[in-house]
């Protein structure tokens, strides 16, 4: 696994001060690089939504509306202006922290997102926890004895998990745990303020529906990476020669190096993870951002779509940055620039 050269300290790093630390400079560079990325994402989204048939006014008014009624509402909503004017207007608002207003009900987009973001954030976090909490022990056990019982079972389960769409899995989970066993709720969200246990109960099935396919993917990847480390790396041979036990070599040496690959994939997969919330929130009737996004697309509510896509893009950019920073935490070579 190679370390990022961007974190290597330069001569100027000998100067005391946080601003010159490699981590801060990395963050600065990444944030600057993120600006064109975010701009590109918003522009592309705007163009794609424009290309869809129908308009917000038409969607709001329905099939009975006359062209005059549609025009009247478009004028009210400001959607009769050219695409460029509307985009620049929106972009100007973004620069001042104003994401615009929902075309459906006039609420500020920040309010729409703010009221739903907590649910999605909690769901994503829980899905991540579910997937990683299962991945690590099972991948370690599978890699300990390749071809053994745990390895075979985990591979079979992974195949199933990777083959099944998460919305089908969601329905199966509901049928088993909510309908048949009646141990978990089928729909709805309980805010954390109403009791942490009920809150977690309301998110367990959606989190599994999202997290399980990821667990399957991560397990295969981590297992393969650990096996590669165990079979071909000099430091493993050295450790064994020192008389360190196989389990300790696996967990303290090989696993630690394999974590880089896992971290990279988790960071890159965050977009997929967030994307999965759109359909899962719909099935479990969770009032999250994904559900808002689906409704906004259905209503051609461009300010809300743009706002949510922008927030998602920022989250993915930040997550990737955090992943890079974690390299430094995990690998002293990166931390000290000894690549």
């Amino acid at each position, binding site marked *: 696994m190679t370390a990022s050269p961007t974190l290597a300290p330069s001569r100027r790093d000998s100067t005391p001060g946080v601003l010159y630390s490699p981590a801060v400079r990395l963050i600065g560079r990444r944030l600057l690089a993120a600006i064109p990325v975010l701009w590109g994402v918003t522009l592309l989204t705007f163009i794609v939504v424009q290309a869809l048939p129908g308009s917000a006014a038409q969607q709001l008014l329905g*099939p009975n509306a*006359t062209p005059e009624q549609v025009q009247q509402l478009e004028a009210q909503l400001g959607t009769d202006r050219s695409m460029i004017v509307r985009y620049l207007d929106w972009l100007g608002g973004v620069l001042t922290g104003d994401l615009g207003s929902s075309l459906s009900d006039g609420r500020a987009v920040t309010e729409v997102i703010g009221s739903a973001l907590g649910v999605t954030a909690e769901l994503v976090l829980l899905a991540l926890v579910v997937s990683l909490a299962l991945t690590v022990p099972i991948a370690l056990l599978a890699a300990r004895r390749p071809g053994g019982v745990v390895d075979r079972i985990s591979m079979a389960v992974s195949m199933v998990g990777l083959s099944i769409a998460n919305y089908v899995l969601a*329905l199966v989970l*509901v049928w088993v745990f*909510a*309908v048949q066993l009646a141990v978990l709720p089928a*729909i709805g969200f309980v805010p954390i303020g109403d009791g942490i246990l009920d809150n977690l109960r309301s998110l367990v099935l959606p989190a599994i529906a999202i997290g399980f396919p990821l667990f399957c993917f991560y397990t295969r990847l981590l297992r393969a990476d650990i096996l590669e480390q165990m079979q071909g790396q000099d430091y493993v041979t050295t450790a064994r020669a020192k008389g360190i036990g196989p389990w300790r070599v696996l967990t303290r040496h090989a696993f630690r190096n394999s974590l880089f690959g896992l971290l990279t994939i988790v960071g890159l997969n965050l977009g997929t993870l967030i994307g999965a919330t759109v359909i899962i929130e719909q*099935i479990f*009737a969770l009032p999250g951002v994904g559900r808002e996004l689906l*409704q906004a697309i259905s209503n051609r509510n461009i300010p809300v779509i743009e706002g949510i896509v922008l927030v998602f893009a920022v989250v993915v950019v930040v997550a990737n940055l955090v992943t890079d920073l974690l390299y430094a935490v995990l690998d002293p070579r990166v931390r000290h620039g000894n690549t």
Partner: protein
Amino acid sequence: MHRFKPVTFGVLSALVIALSACGGGGGNAADGSSSNNGADNPPAAKSGGEITVLEDSGFAGAWPAGLDPATNTNGAANQPMMDTIYGQLFKLVEGGKIEGELAEGSTLSSDGKTFTIKLRPGVKFTDGSPFDAETVKWNFDRSLASPCTCNPKSSWPKLENPAVTTSGTDTVEIHFTAPFAAISRSFISANLNWIASKTSFDKMGEKAFKQKPVGAGPFTVVSNSPSNQLVVQKNPGYFRQGHPYLDKVTFKSIGGDQAAYQALQAGQADAYEGMSTPALVDQASKQSNLTTTQMLSTSPYVIQLNTSKPPFNDQKARDAVYYATDTEAIRKGLFNNRYPTSQTFTGPGGLFYKPTVPGYKTFDLAKAKQLVSEMGGMQVTLGTINVLVAKQTTEALQSQWAKAGIKTKIESYDLAGLIKAFGGPWQSMLQTAGAWDPAIGVGVGFRFNSHSPFTGVKDPALDKLLAEGSGTLDEAKRQTIYDEAGKLISDKSYAPFMFAFAPANLAVKGVYGPGLTTKLPAVAVNPPVSWPDVYKTSGTGQ
């Protein structure tokens, strides 16, 4: 009015439907138009309790524009929420009759041009302000100016100026320039049926009002999270003594039939309105803990043919489609005879229903083949809205028509795409046509009147008949006129009709109510449930 549903979601959830079948209880299977499996003799009504009602997020469960009658552009779909908050001026009861609710009564002048509404005395809004004629007029003026599908003006004759006047504190009049027979019926599911408090509106402002509106209905709003959840509680000052029965109703938006069915089975909800996936309706009707009520259909599916463009500007091509279409095979094979046949624009739940039309061209493959051969082959595009029943039907039609030599390309649209497609060179569309009363809502004129943007027919004779049907006050004469219109459509082969679809309502045992566990016509896709009369004797819900 159409529902938005991801077809793929329904199809792929077949696995879960199959799994769900393992937990089946007693009850009867689907038996055609009716599958009510247990609410025939409901226990006596009692007060108290609360229920959770699920609404499809693609239809009734979407209220993105808020709940103000004049600005809720999805009002016709949001009847459950609107009716609980505002009550209704007029309500539809079993037997297809209209009764006054917040209106004490109404009369139509002998020339059919003036509709007089007498308001119920002593009614107050939940903010304490009086429910009087001035407030009703203010509501009517706002609602009639609204660019909304639930604004009934599009199916009304031209209005006089002024259109709405008052007389005293309890009488409101609507004035037309031409007679209109279906005026009282046109209130059901229209925004004029919901009266908002002007006092609260002025005090709160439009933006706040639409989020937490105030009416004189059986319930008041506790909380509203748009297109997610609406909680309403009993209005103790509701004018009907002892009503509503329930203390609280929670409407929850849910992503489709399968998720709703499972939530009911898991005991997390008490009712679901508008189940339209046939396999799930069949499955639900076998569950002993559920009452499944197949509603009365009013709008049959029809294959609209664009008579202004080839090949359907030639009656020979239209005849070929009539003969190549085996409706009975589709009804039986795909939908287990659940939806009754209709050869014209009326359904069994609607007024003026006639299932058959004399001389209607039914399936005859040999004749279809011959006509297609005479035309040197046929290639057509068949469009439809992206809902499961419509999608399945178009695929079946494609297969049937292929046997007659007609090559068919299927186009499936969301609502916006469908509207756009009607503005282009479309050839045929599978749609629903008709209404509870053909003269109102998305009635026959919507699909067949020359002036409608959604018609494939421009026939002055048919226009004349439809105008007469709307303006004639005598019901028997109206029946004759609509029979003639159906015959004309059939003779000219303007559009083969198929079957009259209607959704089903599901309720857990212990929850009962008119329209929920009894059959009512599906006026705007879903039937108008009478929420003040819904009660709970037990149940698994919250």
